[in-house]
């Protein structure tokens, strides 16, 4: 076990190093931008994985935290000077707001059953979308506004490295988080909430902690997203963002952390190429249809996702006898 862990870590560091060197080797602007986008959505999808994959709760309101981060950064950079200091401060402000809101919303809604929770988060997130559309003096509504990014990030490459750094830090922090005793309790909640409760854990508290962590990380992703576009409008708060996170997590593999990163890569790349195919045949303009179908098939036949399936096959090969003990639908089982 120890040796595979080491091999995994070495592979991981090689990949990170390769990605860090990438912009110095290639000067393709498209790729730098596309990869930046992938990293940002990886952070978002990982935060969603904490909820869906580790705690086993389905939230349809994740976009609101993403949007909070995006608006906090955009508004502060627009109203004050576009400096690094303000940028860092705005990320912190976004995270605080997201943390407080996710705490309050979690406290109110997490005691409900999964259906109600999903609906209520959808409703609350809808509320924030309406708020952003109506509060035009602050957000400029659906038209959005452009703002100046700090000088330092004018260079796409610097920004690429910053986002990559954030992704690596977030990945290791979350890895540490899910491997901690607290993370283990979250997994216990996912596997069997009743039993966790009867072991004396106040599961509501743990679920609230998970939702706060997920909200704060999603807000970071939102801040990075806003600066990468230098533009923000209400689309950051729409259901589409939640759906993207959901698709990436499911397709990559729930409850794996590395899965959502791979899912983000697959979906962003596919989106890039499929929408490029729109010239060939108009059906590719509706590329999201393919994702919907792939997603439905994944939920039915492939509930472990890409990473989960590989891990399962690997595990099966190593432990051929104990097959009877395999949890059937790990991650999504309830």
């Amino acid at each position, binding site marked *: 076990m120890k040796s595979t862990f080491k091999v995994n870590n070495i592979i991981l560091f090689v990949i990170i190093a390769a990605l860090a060197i990438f912009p110095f080797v290639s000067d393709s602007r498209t790729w730098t931008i596309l990869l930046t986008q992938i990293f940002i959505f990886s952070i978002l999808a990982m935060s969603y994985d904490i909820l869906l994959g580790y705690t086993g709760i389905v939230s349809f309101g994740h976009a609101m935290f993403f949007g909070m981060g995006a608006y906090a950064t955009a508004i502060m950079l627009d109203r004050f000077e576009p400096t690094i200091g303000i940028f860092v401060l705005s990320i912190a402000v976004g995270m605080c707001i997201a943390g407080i809101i996710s705490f309050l919303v979690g406290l109110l809604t997490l005691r409900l059953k999964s259906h109600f929770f999903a609906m*209520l988060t*959808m409703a609350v997130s809808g509320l924030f979308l309406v708020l952003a559309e109506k509060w035009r003096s602050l957000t400029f509504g659906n038209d959005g506004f452009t703002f100046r990014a700090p000088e330092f990030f004018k260079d796409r490459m610097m920004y690429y490295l910053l986002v990559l750094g954030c992704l690596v830090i977030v990945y290791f922090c979350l890895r540490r988080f899910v491997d901690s005793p607290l993370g283990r309790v979250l997994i216990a909640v996912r596997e069997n909430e009743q039993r966790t409760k009867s072991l004396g854990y106040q599961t509501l508290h743990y679920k609230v902690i998970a939702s706060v962590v997920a909200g704060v990380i999603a807000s970071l992703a939102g801040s990075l997203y806003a600066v990468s576009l230098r533009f923000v409008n209400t689309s950051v708060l729409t259901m589409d963002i939640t759906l993207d996170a959901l698709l990436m997590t499911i397709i990559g593999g729930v409850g794996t952390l590395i899965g959502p990163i791979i899912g983000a890569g697959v979906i962003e790349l596919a989106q890039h190429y499929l929408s490029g195919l729109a010239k060939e045949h108009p059906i590719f303009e509706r590329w999201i249809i393919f994702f919907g179908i792939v997603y439905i098939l994944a939920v039915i036949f492939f509930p472990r996702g890409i990473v989960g399936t590989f891990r399962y096959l690997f595990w099966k090969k190593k432990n051929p006898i104990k097959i009877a003990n395999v949890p059937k639908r790990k991650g999504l089982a309830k």
Partner: protein
Amino acid sequence: MELLINLLINGLATGMLIFLLAAGLTLIFGLMDVLNFAHGGLFAWGAFSGVWLYGVTDSFTLAIIGAILTGVILGFITEKLIITPVYGNHVQQILITLGFMIVLSEMLKVVFGPNQLAAKTPPLLAGSWEIGDVIIIKYRLFIIIIGFIVFGIFQFILKRTKIGLIVRAGVMNKEMVQALGINIKQVFLYVFMTGAGLAALSGILMAPYSGVIYAEMGMEFAILAFIVVVIGGMGSFPGSLLAAILVGLAGSFMAYYVPALSLAVNMMLMAIVLIFRPQGLFTAKG
């Protein structure tokens, strides 16, 4: 006074449309614990297919029948393809029905084009009556009447027929009904198809009411229907009617007096109900 009556009629008409959507949802949930996030997609398909049929045949009756048929067929496909494989697993149900919702609304854009479509009011129902100072728009009254007729028919079926008895018993305790030798899954399929038909009916009635139809309207309306189901109590048919009227009236009065709060009021209603009475205002009783 005439303002009050107008707001009342507006609210009732909207409430009836939401009721038609929520009625199916609440029975589907009550019977099988399935929350169908794709319900809004069935609603939008009803609206688009109905408007298209109305354009082709020029008969609103045919459009309504066509829309309901579309809904029922889609309901059959949804139940067989989407709900059955993940039966009993809540998280997967939520995820998969939401995925199907995306497919349904994107398919709409592929079939009918991505733009909004205009929907005409049939000439017989266009215009309004003036009684004293009060102007009553005919079409809104028509929606209200249809809503009450549907409620009456379903209440009759639920209370007076064998299948209604099975459905009511299934909502209360499905294991017991199964133990008595009734194939509850078969019953559920029929209930699902009926619910889908009602959603489609709501869609086609909605089209001339709002004037334009677009693919995203499914989701917008479905959220209102979810709120109604929560407020009314999952599985309660009369509860969903009352809650729908409540939401409709709250929406129309708020839109006039405090427009900024018109959407928030429903969410607040739902939050209050969920916190203080999580089972809803009405519980499903025989």
